[in-house]
C-alpha cells in the first residue's frame, strides 16, 4: 500500500495542531482588512454596478487567504523539517517523488480551503453575498491553492534558512497577490497597469474566483481557469523535476 495517505494526513495534522496560528491568525487578518477597507472605501468605490464594495472585497480576501496559507503550509513544513533534520523521516520511506509532491500539495490545498472557508464564514454576517456559480468558486480555490502549494514546495526545497522562505513570501507572493485585484477591479487602473496585470497569474485566480460569487468578472472565467491550469502545469513540472533530481534533499 502507498504511504501517500499517511504523508497527507501528517501534513494536515501538523497545521491542525497549531490551528490558532495557522487558521485563527489569517482569519483575524482578513476580518481586519474587511473592516478597515470597507469602511474607508465604501463610498468611493463602486466596481460592478450591483455589487457594494464590501461584498466585492470578500472573495478577494478569501482567495488571498487561500493562496497565502497554501504557500505557507508547504514552504514552512519543508524548511522546518530541513532545518531540524527531521526531513529524514520522509526521505527514508519508499515514496515516489510524485507521491511526495501530491501529499504536500494536497495538504496545502486543504489548509487553503479550510482557512478560506473560515474567512468566508466569519465575513458573512458583515455583507450580503451571492453564490452564483459554486463550482467555479471551488475550481478556482482548488487550482489556486495547488499552484501556491507547489510554489511553497519550490521555496521550501530551495531555501536553506527560514528568512529565505520569508523573502520568497514577501518579495514574490505578497506583491503578486496584492497587485492581483484583491482590493480593486483592474478596470479601475490606468491602461498600463491594467495591461501589466494580465501577466500576473494571481489576477486570473482572484478574478475567476470572484466570478463564482457574482457572475461578473474582468476576464472570461474559462480563459482564467485555462491560464491558471497552464501555470499550475508549469509550477508542478518544475517542482516534480526538482524532486526527481533530489535537488537540495538528496545530496
Amino acid at each position, binding site marked *: 500500500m502507498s504511504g501517500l495517505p499517511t504523508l497527507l*494526513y501528517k501534513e494536515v*495534522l501538523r497545521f491542525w495542531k497549531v490551528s490558532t496560528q495557522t487558521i485563527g491568525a489569517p482569519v483575524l487578518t482578513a476580518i481586519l482588512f474587511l473592516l478597515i477597507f470597507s469602511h474607508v472605501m465604501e463610498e468611493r468605490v463602486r466596481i460592478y454596478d450591483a455589487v457594494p464594495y464590501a461584498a466585492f472585497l470578500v472573495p478577494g480576501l478569501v482567495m488571498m487567504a487561500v493562496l497565502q496559507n497554501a504557500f505557507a503550509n508547504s514552504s514552512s513544513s519543508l524548511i522546518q523539517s530541513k532545518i531540524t533534520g*527531521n526531513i529524514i523521516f520522509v526521505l527514508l520511506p519508499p515514496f515516489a517523488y510524485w507521491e511526495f509532491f501530491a501529499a504536500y500539495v494536497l495538504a496545502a490545498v486543504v489548509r487553503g480551503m479550510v482557512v478560506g472557508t473560515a474567512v468566508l464564514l466569519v465575513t458573512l454576517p458583515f455583507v450580503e453575498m451571492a453564490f452564483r456559480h459554486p463550482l467555479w468558486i471551488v475550481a478556482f480555490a482548488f487550482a489556486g491553492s495547488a499552484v501556491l502549494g507547489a510554489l511553497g514546495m519550490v521555496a521550501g526545497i530551495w531555501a536553506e534558512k527560514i528568512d529565505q522562505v520569508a523573502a520568497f513570501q514577501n518579495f514574490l507572493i505578497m506583491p503578486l497577490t496584492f497587485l492581483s485585484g484583491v482590493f480593486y477591479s483592474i478596470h479601475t487602473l490606468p491602461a498600463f497597469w491594467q495591461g501589466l496585470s494580465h501577466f500576473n497569474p494571481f489576477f486570473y485566480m482572484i478574478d475567476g474566483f470572484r466570478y463564482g460569487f457574482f457572475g461578473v468578472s474582468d476576464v472570461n472565467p474559462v480563459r482564467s481557469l485555462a491560464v491558471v491550469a497552464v501555470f499550475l502545469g508549469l509550477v508542478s513540472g518544475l517542482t516534480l523535476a526538482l524532486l526527481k533530481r533530489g535537488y537540495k534533499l*538528496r545530496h
Partner: protein
Amino acid sequence: MTAAIEFRDVHKRFGALQALSGIDLEVPQGEFFGLLGPNGAGKTTLISVLAGLVRADRGSARVLGHDVRADYRAARRSLGVVPQELVFDPFFTVRETLRIQSGYFGLRDNGAWIEEVMQHLDLASKAEVNMRALSGGMKRRVLVAQALVHKPPVIVLDEPTAGVDIQLRQALWQFIRRLNRDGHTIVLTTHYLEEAETLCERIAMLKEGRVVALDSKANLLKRVHHLFLRLRLAGELPAELRALDHGGSAAAHVLRLKSYEDVEQTLASIRRAGCRIEEMELAQPDLEDVFVEVMQRS
C-alpha cells in the same frame, strides 16, 4: 544467498572533499557487522548512500539485491536506519510518530508491532507524551523504534549509543541482539570499540573513504601480535625496559611485549634491578589496539 548489503566501487565527492573512494563491501544476511573508523572516515556517508539520502557519483549499492536507485522502493522497505543526529518532529506524540512512520511504509493496522517495539524500548509509559518533552535518551529510543516500525530485515545503526546512559545502552543491545537472533542483519557504526568487540562478528575499518581492514573479529585481533604487561612497581623501572613503556605513570607501567617469552626476560631484569612488583596483569590486545595499528599503518 543474496547479500544483505552490497557496495560496489562506491565513490562520492562533496566539493573538494573525496568522502568515499571506491568502497567494496558485502555483508551477508544475518550478520552482526561493525563499521569503524575515525571521524570523517566516511561511515555516515556510506550509510547515507545505502539509505538513498546521498547519491553516489559512481558505483552501486544494494539492499537484499535491490539497487538503491533503480529499485529504491524495495531497497528502502528492506532497510531500517537509526540516524546519528538526535532528530524528532515536535508536532507529535511518541505513538503518533510511530504510527505515522509506519504509515509511510504503507502499513496500516501495525498497532501490535508498534506496542511491542515500545515495550522493548521502555517507551510504553511515554506513548502519549509529545516528542518535545522527552529527554535525549528517550528521543534516541524513539529513533530506534522509528527505524523498526516496518520490520526491516536489514537494520543500520549509526552511532546509536552516543551520549546514551548505560541502562539504555544495555536494553538497546539486548533488543538488537534479539533481532539479530531472529534473522535481522545488523550494521553498527560506533566510537565505542569495546561495544563493537562484544557485538560484531565481522568488522570493516574505514579511513579517508577507503576500507583499510575487513575481517572477522577473531582474525583482526590476531593481527596484533604483542601483549601488554601492566605493572606497578616499588622502585624505578630498569633503564633497558623504558623503551617498551607505553604510557602509565611513575609507579604504573604498561610494557608492550612481542611474545610470552619476553615476559620471563622482563621479570628477570626487574628482579636484577632490585625492584619489587606490587601489581601485575598480562593483557591480550583488544580491538582498540587493532584499530590504532590499522589506522597508523594505512
